[in-house]
């Protein structure tokens, strides 16, 4: 794509961000999930994965899918500053996606976590990977987080014992719609990391290769009877 002067003006300034090194996690089922940062050219597979969930109201998949769709599209088209996308893939098939944004050297802005393969804490692992990237690789001091579903609230606010910063509104506010802002600090991360974050590095080349080309799921437990291509 030609980047003309107008397009340059439309794009946000981008900070140089440290990459997220890939890792591998053995899920309870024994399946191996590669967790890695996505490349922009993979946006098509990511959007295609999210799209079928736009109409699933149960467990708030619709709102999370809609927001994540716009976040990935915004990232792909250079309309969001310093966004990153991390994917979990099992044999190349997308099992879950997380989106987030590096605001500055001190602050991260967690966007969304979408679990495709349920029942194995894939979402919990990917959320932890996102926090790991913010605190350990991007060297931020804190990450602002909101929940838009009861599952999210339980998984993040309760299980991580996040700091409730809602009383500091509007001085402290998440970018997503004014819902109460909670914060993961470096101190909290250090406390929960041993029980929340796992994964082996470096990933063996043959294992990493399984996730080199991402595949959209052909079926979703959230959409009984639905098959891709039908």
């Amino acid at each position, binding site marked *: 794509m030609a980047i003309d002067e107008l397009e340059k003006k439309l794009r946000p300034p981008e900070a140089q961000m440290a990459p997220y090194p890939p890792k591998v996690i053995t899920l309870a*089922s024994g399946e191996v999930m590669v967790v890695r940062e996505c490349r922009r050219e993979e946006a098509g597979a990511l959007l295609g994965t999210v799209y079928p969930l736009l109409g699933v109201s149960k467990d708030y998949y619709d709102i999370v899918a809609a927001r994540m769709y716009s976040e990935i599209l915004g990232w792909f088209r250079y309309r969001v500053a310093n966004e990153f996308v991390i994917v979990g893939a099992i044999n190349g098939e997308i099992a879950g996606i997380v989106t987030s944004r590096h605001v500055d050297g001190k602050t991260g802005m967690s966007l969304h976590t979408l679990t495709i393969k349920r*029942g194995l804490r894939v979402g919990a692992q990917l959320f932890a990977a996102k926090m790991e990237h913010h605190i350990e690789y991007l060297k931020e001091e804190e990450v602002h987080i909101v929940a838009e579903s*009861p599952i999210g609230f339980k998984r993040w606010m*309760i299980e991580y014992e996040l700091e409730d910063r809602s009383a500091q509104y509007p001085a402290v506010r998440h970018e997503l719609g004014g819902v109460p802002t909670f914060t993961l600090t470096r101190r909290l991360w250090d406390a929960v990391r041993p*029980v929340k974050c*796992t*994964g082996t590095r470096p990933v063996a080349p043959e294992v990493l290769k399984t996730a080199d080309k991402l595949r959209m799921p052909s079926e979703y437990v959230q959409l009984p009877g639905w098959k891709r291509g039908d």
Partner: protein
Amino acid sequence: MAPRVGIVGIGHCRFGNSSDYDLVDVIAYSANDALQDAGGLELRKQVDQVFVGNMAAGMFNHVTSAASALVSRMDMEPVPAELIENGPASGASAIRMGYMAIASGMADVVLVAAGEVMRSVSGWEATNIVATMSHTEAEYNMGLTLPGFAGMFTRLYMEKYGMTERDLALVAVKDHANGALNKYSHVQIPVTIDAIADGESANVVNNYVAEPLRMYSTCPISDGSAAVILVNMDSPKAKLFRKKAIRIAGMGAATDTHCVHNRKDPLVLDAVRLSSQMAYKMAGIGPADISFAELHDAFVIFELLNSEEVGFFERGKSFIGVRNHETEIGGRIPINTSGGLKAKGHPVGATGVSQVVELVRQLRGEAEEGRQVKDPKYGMAVNFGGFGNNVITTILAKD
């Protein structure tokens, strides 16, 4: 002499998340399924009595009088209908009431349906509601929940008998392998010992819930229902049903102290032992005659303890049996062939009936390939109410 009582129809929904549905509809689903299995929906007009098992619809769903609602929903008026509540043993108690109704001569055909919709509330609210069955002053008000209780219980057993956390994980691996093959299971995912106990990610993948209990030592919070149709096998009505009856050979029930701290040894589950002894005596058999068993395993430690109390293993030795694969399908005494509460799920009020449905499926030879016990003769179910303080044991026989 009391008439013989048998089961001629079984119904079950897939356990999981039914929170979008009305509780009574969830129960009616399995009741209709049982009638279809027995020969057709028109058989509902032959039913003399309905018992509904449910633990806490008043709190979970703001619904009371579910038995009255079910009868009306299924166009079964004016059949008598009562709700049976006995904590997580409500289902087995409802079957026991059905048995007694037939044995007493007051009914020839009884529909027993049970269900619970727990995911209408958050997980911790569900835990709170279930905890209300504990002693109010001595336990509940002190902040004890069932996972907390089971954690302490497990720790005591580990210290006394040398069981390890890995032994608990082996039970979960076995249950999930069975549950993965059961079309009714909430969790249809097999798990590996490497992933949940031995591997370097195990601490995170299988996180603590109430140390030493981990996620895979604990049942999920499930919605669901199950139903059975009981018949007087010596009545002319028995001929109306399509399926050959699976006979209720033995039933036993017993209670223990409400306060766990009032027991001489908290690791001794008197009510399980006594109820199973009653059931064995009634059936005229002993532990060695049982082909397979469904043992209440809201926490996997209960499966181990129950298997000792009913006489399958010596005290403190059940985990050795698990290590030796004795409780797997094909082993000496297959336990929780359905996946148990651990994998199949535990919609509290429905569990006792669900266990008995599994006994019938196995005795009929209708379990899925890979988890069918070979040529079973007797199946046993132990359903726990409270923390082992109100227990029902049921033995079914294939004649």
